[in-house]
């Protein structure tokens, strides 16, 4: 990749913000940091404060300090563990699906063929659809077990239609979400493919490397870093999914499709329990950071070198 003489991370900086090369980077970085700091600190402080308060929007008569009760209430909820597992399954499943298909599609749409430009746009299009709409369209027009298109096709070939949201709720939601995010992975990876060294591929081809070998040894390593980007960004968005769950299953049946955010949603915006919702927000931030640290330690570090 880069032929830089010094490995970047080896550049030790004596002072934070001032690099060895003598440029003061602080004026460049601080506007973003300051903005984000304010952005983060103010709501976080408020949320932290509310999480220790009794505060229900629809019942202002109940007030005062709640101690840890908002937290214990959430953490001892039967659905809490299930929701964590569901969150992990949903995020993990969709990530794997989108990376696999995103990479394949990126390679495919990088080839030259007739109408390549237009077809690319079609592939990216699902990413433009609002989550609620995507979920409603899939649920009612496609996956409905009586009047949906899939059910008609299944009956047409003599099969029993699948009752998607009753028997496999989490999988069905994952399918809808993956449909929205595969285009994203494709878009990013396709862009990254542009910077691939064509001569290298051509040379490998001349040397008799099979397409699969070329894919494994040239394309995949080249896409490693963009894939980290995709993983990072998608993780953040996938951790926050709730619209798709709300319109399809409302978290059910039981808590089979309840993720952490949906659990928080129920507290914060169905019950309007600001205290409980805030506690849920804090718990989610803590958990998300654990995931993030894990991601950085394993995935990012490996891919960086």
């Amino acid at each position, binding site marked *: 990749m880069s032929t830089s003489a010094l490995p970047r991370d080896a550049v030790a900086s004596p002072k934070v913000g001032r690099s060895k090369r003598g440029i003061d980077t602080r004026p460049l970085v601080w506007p973003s940091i300051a903005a984000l700091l304010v952005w983060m600190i103010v709501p976080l402080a408020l949320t932290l404060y509310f999480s220790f308060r009794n505060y229900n929007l629809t019942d202002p008569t109940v007030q005062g300090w709640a101690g840890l009760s908002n937290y214990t209430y959430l953490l001892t909820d039967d659905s809490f563990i299930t929701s964590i597992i569901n969150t992990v399954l949903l995020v993990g499943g969709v990530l794997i699906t989108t990376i696999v298909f995103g990479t394949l599609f990126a390679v495919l749409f990088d*080839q030259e063929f007739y109408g390549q430009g237009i077809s690319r746009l079609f592939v990216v299009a699902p990413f433009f659809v609002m989550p609620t709409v*995507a979920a409603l369209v899939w649920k009612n027009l496609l996956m409905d077990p009586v009047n949906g298109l899939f059910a008609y096709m299944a009956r047409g070939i003599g099969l029993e239609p699948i009752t998607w949201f009753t028997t496999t709720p989490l999988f069905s939601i994952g399918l809808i979400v993956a449909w929205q995010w595969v285009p994203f992975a494709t878009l990013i990876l396709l862009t990254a493919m542009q910077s691939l060294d064509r001569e290298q591929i051509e040379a490998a081809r001349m040397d008799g490397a099979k397409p699969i070998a070329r894919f494994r040894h040239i394309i995949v390593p080249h896409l490693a870093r963009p894939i980290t980007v995709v993983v990072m960004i998608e993780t953040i968005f996938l951790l926050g999914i709730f619209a798709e769950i709300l319109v399809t299953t409302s978290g059910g049946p039981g808590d089979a499709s309840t993720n952490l955010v949906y659990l928080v949603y129920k507290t914060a915006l169905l019950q309007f329990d600001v205290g409980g919702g805030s506690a849920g927000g804090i718990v989610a931030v803590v958990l998300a950071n654990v995931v993030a640290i894990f991601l950085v330690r394993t995935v990012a570090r490996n891919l960086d070198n």
Partner: protein
Amino acid sequence: MKTKQRDKIIMTFLGWGVAFLVFFPILWMAITSFKSEIDAITPSLFFHPTLESYTTVNERVNYFGAVINSVVESVGATMVCLAFAVPAAYAMAFYPGRKTKDLLMWMMSTKMMPAVGVLVPIYVIFQQLGLLDTWTGIIAMFTMMNLPIVVWMLYSFFREVPKEILEASRMDGATPMQQMRLLLLPLSLPGVMSTALLSIILCWNEAFWSINLTSVKAAPLTQLIVSFSSPEGLFWSKLSAASLLAIAPILVFGWLTQRQLVRGLTFGAVK
């Protein structure tokens, strides 16, 4: 030569096949939008096409007003966001310190607070500052929302640019501003473009804050869609029509920019 031609035809079939499958739900939505509500509840291909739903949508909402709000808010937020993010990503990519990684991580972690849990604090802040239902408020919100992602993406694209080029220009006396404007941005144009496009799309589709923090004057297309989703009664055709109208501008935009997006400079050529 012959095999090349054959490969191209195979690729054409494969590419269009995949494109069709992925696009199919939207196509089906488009077909549904031309049905009457009663036809829309069953998946038949035989129906009398009608513009009923589009007429209804047009009668009920101010479509162009919502488009203007969506455009102003998503493009505005993206521009503000880039103005913050390009210098930051430049500094992080070319003059990294020990804390750079942690800083990036911290930025990303600001995004991990679930929006549903913090609506009330944010609403109160917006109300106090008079930002409810204003372009400024939504642009500020979207900027903050996307800033970590934009910084992260730019950072990773900038790192693909060989350091030596910037180094050389610096030796020639170019200021950081000039380096960014004359070298970095042109060199990483596809990356910057796709980052910008991504940011615009994320803003365009953002359906929690944009609905909860606006009412009339700054209400974007997402609110228009919500007014057609899940009323009592049949609504699939109207919802399909409204959704298609809502994604049409960004599809056109995507179509216009996708050449930019993928043509760009290839780094292979730079090396």
